[in-house]
């Protein structure tokens, strides 16, 4: 979920209710919107040492969503050799590894030859 400002048109991620970071509009002027989890990979980093969860290694991607905002999240692939800056990526829902928690988490994956619902 992201946020759109009806006063200046700024689209932001993540959603929050405090006010628009560009023009300061708040209240009814800002509304939460569904942002398509697709965009272009700006950069990535394979994390080999990390304090806390998740356990390393994992790969972080920085994605510029088609709707504008930059987001950072986990890539599906923990081995970054197959991903390239500039390629299209989409969000996929992956079941979390925590067995007690039947939730899923959003990760990003390369969009080449791969379609997701």
């Amino acid at each position, binding site marked *: 979920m992201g946020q759109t400002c009806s006063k200046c048109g*700024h689209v932001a*991620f*993540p*959603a*929050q209710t*405090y006010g628009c*970071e*560009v023009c300061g509009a708040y209240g009814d002027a800002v509304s939460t919107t569904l942002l398509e989890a697709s965009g272009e990979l*700006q*950069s*990535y*980093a*394979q*994390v*080999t*040492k*990390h*304090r*806390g*969860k*998740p356990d390393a290694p994992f790969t*972080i991607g*920085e994605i*510029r969503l088609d709707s*504008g905002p*930059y*987001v*950072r*999240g*986990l890539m599906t692939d923990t081995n970054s050799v197959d991903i390239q*800056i*500039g390629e299209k990526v989409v969000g996929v829902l992956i079941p979390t590894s925590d067995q007690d928690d039947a939730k899923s988490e*959003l990760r990003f994956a390369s969009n080449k030859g791969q379609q997701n619902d």
Partner: protein
Amino acid sequence: MTKALKDFRPVYVVGIGLHPYQFMGPTPYVELGLTAVRGALTDAGISWPDVESVYTGTALIGMATSRIMLRHLGASGVPMTQVENASASGSSAVRQAVLDVASGMTDISLGMGVDKPAIPQFAPSKTGIKNLDDGLVEPVSHFALLAERYMNDFGATIEDFARVVVKNSANGALNENAQKRKARSIEDILTEEPLSGAITPRQCCPIGEGAAAVIVASEDAIERLGIDRSRAIRVASSSLTSEQVYENASNFDAELTRVTAEEAMADAGVKASELDIVEVHDAFAIEELFYAEAIGLAKPGEAPAMLKAGAFDIGGDVAVSPSGGLLCMGHPIGPTGAGQIAEVTRQLRGEAGPSQHAGAKVGMTHMVGIGAVCAVHILKNDN
């Protein structure tokens, strides 16, 4: 109408003092801070009751740092305030001292920083806003992402990042106030296991402890107290800005730096090409390359080639982080920005000993604090 520092009366750095930066040990912050302030008073040749306001940059010690520490100089009743601005705390403390003197509220003020390592309380994690990258992107990974992009865009390599460490470790080895004093080779970095992306441990600054103090004064005070005018270094500008929304720039640290440095240089009437000394916020080696370009010392993508050619060495075109920078002098948080101003002052006085960049007349200090804010000062030797 708003004014810049140049529109007020001149302000000079007249005293500097440091407690060497060091790995965490048993020394109480009181001793760290007093060592730096007594050093600065001696350097200026003035006494504690001459100081009319005090700002202490500190992010990790806790409430009420200043008076508990400084009462041991004699409880003079001087106004005291703590300044917390993340990594830019010390820079911001000195800025407040400068503004007091510039405005005429005081003739002599002290801006200092002191800290000891502690688990920080981070405001950005308490906003109540859930994000996709919560707990995912530590600072090292933030810079690993930016480094990967930089390598992709400009063909830079890990050797280029290693050369920043080689230069700054050689500089740190010459600086008796530096936390890390061992000169490193490119191989020392290339043989390390990465932490995240291309970033290895020696490309990251150490967090330690220490203190730095900067005494600033008006011309009236220099005259009245007989302070050595030939060692007084003018604060030509002081800029502090906060991050805006940069719709097309994911490297907001660099964009924020560009905006702040431009303002500081315009206020001081100085071009990037006229800077002799630049102390940048190189908490990670890659940052030196980003900020050298953002400040205008190099064109986009050209900082690695300039670094390799020796342009940023002591004795090069512009000495970048001749103190060793955050990478090797260290980054004790509160003191760091004040320490940069002390180090640039040493250089502009021609008192930097083995680290001296010959003929240094104009210097810049630069710190970014998470959030983000950016503080840039320009100092000039008018003599």
